[in-house]
């Protein structure tokens, strides 16, 4: 058996599996999107019908807000944890990375425990503060699973930063704040963009959290779900899936070319 043939045999299971369960289904999905009553115009409908357009806008806005907030919080915490050694650091780090493997449904439930009708906030302040089912609840839920993803990316990048650059800046008389502004943040730049893209893509595609929380929030994944299951509008569900998939895929491609890492999407 020649070496080249052996390598082909090694690759064969992967080729068969991804052809049968990835390439062909995706092709089918694409065909399904244009086989509906409106044909190719289905993609036009997404921007023309207020229901889809507003869902799209809402999803983008929530995702943007989550991305910005997660970047601020996680960069602050990540820099702090990467640059300081103290008792309890490991515990804090574990807590901050714990939600990485929580499915979106669990995150949704945790937000209900925090801000639902019987939630903690509502119990502490009996002014009937219920936010779990609103856009703010959704925002908090997305933030919950975005913080660890951004944190890990930022910390990995911080470890790679040359400490001597900071020490050089300090030796030239820069204050700690100036060092952060002039040395650390520019150094982290590409990783921050990458982390942001990961957070944004994850939030765009998140289904479980919205599913658990949703009473009346129309985010894109929920619209796809209801189009498919309730309205049986398969062409529209497929078209929306393809648009969503293309957006998240493009974003993660950018993220990967900038930082070389991808933290699991999902949630």
């Amino acid at each position, binding site marked *: 058996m020649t070496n080249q043939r052996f390598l082909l045999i090694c690759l064969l299971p992967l080729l068969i599996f991804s052809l049968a369960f990835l390439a062909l289904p995706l092709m089918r999905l694409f065909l399904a999107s244009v086989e509906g009553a409106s044909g190719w115009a289905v993609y036009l409908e997404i921007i023309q019908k207020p229901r889809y357009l507003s869902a799209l806008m809402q999803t983008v806005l929530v995702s943007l807000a989550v991305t910005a907030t997660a970047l601020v919080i996680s960069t602050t915490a990540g820099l702090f944890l990467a640059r300081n050694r103290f008792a309890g650091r490991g515990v804090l780090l574990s807590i901050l990375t714990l939600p990485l493997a929580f499915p979106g449904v669990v995150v949704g439930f945790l937000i209900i425990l925090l801000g639902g009708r019987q939630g903690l906030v509502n119990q502490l302040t009996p002014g009937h503060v219920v936010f779990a089912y609103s856009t703010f609840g959704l925002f908090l839920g997305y933030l919950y699973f975005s913080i660890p993803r951004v944190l890990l990316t930022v910390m990995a990048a911080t470890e790679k930063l040359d400490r001597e650059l900071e020490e050089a800046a300090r030796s030239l008389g820069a204050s700690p704040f100036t060092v952060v502004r002039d040395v650390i943040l520019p150094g982290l730049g590409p990783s921050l963009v990458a982390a942001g893209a990961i957070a944004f893509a994850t939030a765009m*595609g998140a289904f*479980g959290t919205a599913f658990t929380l949703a009473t009346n929030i129309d985010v894109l994944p929920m619209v796809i779900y209801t189009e498919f299951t309730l309205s049986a509008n398969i062409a529209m569900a497929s078209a929306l899936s393809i648009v969503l998939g293309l957006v998240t895929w493009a974003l993660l491609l950018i993220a990967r070319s900038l930082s070389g890492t991808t933290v699991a999407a999902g949630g």
Partner: protein
Amino acid sequence: MRFSIIKVLQLAITLLACAFLLVPAIQSVLAGLTVNYFKGVSSGLTLKWLWKVWELYADSVFLSIWLALSCLVCTIIIGVPAAYALAKNPGWISRILEEFISLPLAVPGLALALALLQLYGTMQGFRTSWSFILVGHVLYTLPFMVRSVLAVLAAIDLKTLEEGAATLGAGSLRRFCDVVVPNAMPGILAGALTVVTLSIGEFNLTWMLHTPYLKTLPVGLADSYASMRLEIASAYTLIFFVMIVPLLTAMQWASNRAQRISA
């Protein structure tokens, strides 16, 4: 450690973020162990909710474990040889293939599930069997296995090690078993723990692919959140935490170890 205002601020934000992530999780654990959550912990602690969950949802726990292990076997069989082949031929074709099989990381699970349903939904025997869910899980976890192994293989001097084995008389298959697999072990281990952790927690794909008779743990969770009292939902979440947290810890340990090797 010198305390500057900046450091205090950083610490405060870090602690706030920790509280945000930890408080609801603790609440959930407490709620699962409290006799009556509305009256508070003062109503006493109990294991009866856990017992109740076990009666209602034990099947889903076992199904999830079974799925995760099957998924692990599949990703090893498909992923490890493929990673080796990709590492041996680092050209643009390999890059494109790697990018293609990584699509399930980027494309939302919902979209993938729709795609699978439309192509295979009419094949009744397949559609209603657990292997349909397995396909979804393998699809989603495979890129993690391939990349994890690939990273380790790219870091060791695979070419020379293999040439060494070849001059000693080892053919392709023997080299793969004796040299490639043992030296890729850290990557396989990290990949395996990631696969199991993600498979047990997978919801987005599974929710679309499951049938009423095949509920995985997260699907059962969603079901309990919608229809059970808060204590039962919390107790069920607690069971999930007990399973996932050690796995997550092991996964992070193994990934760090594999990364140190690749560095």
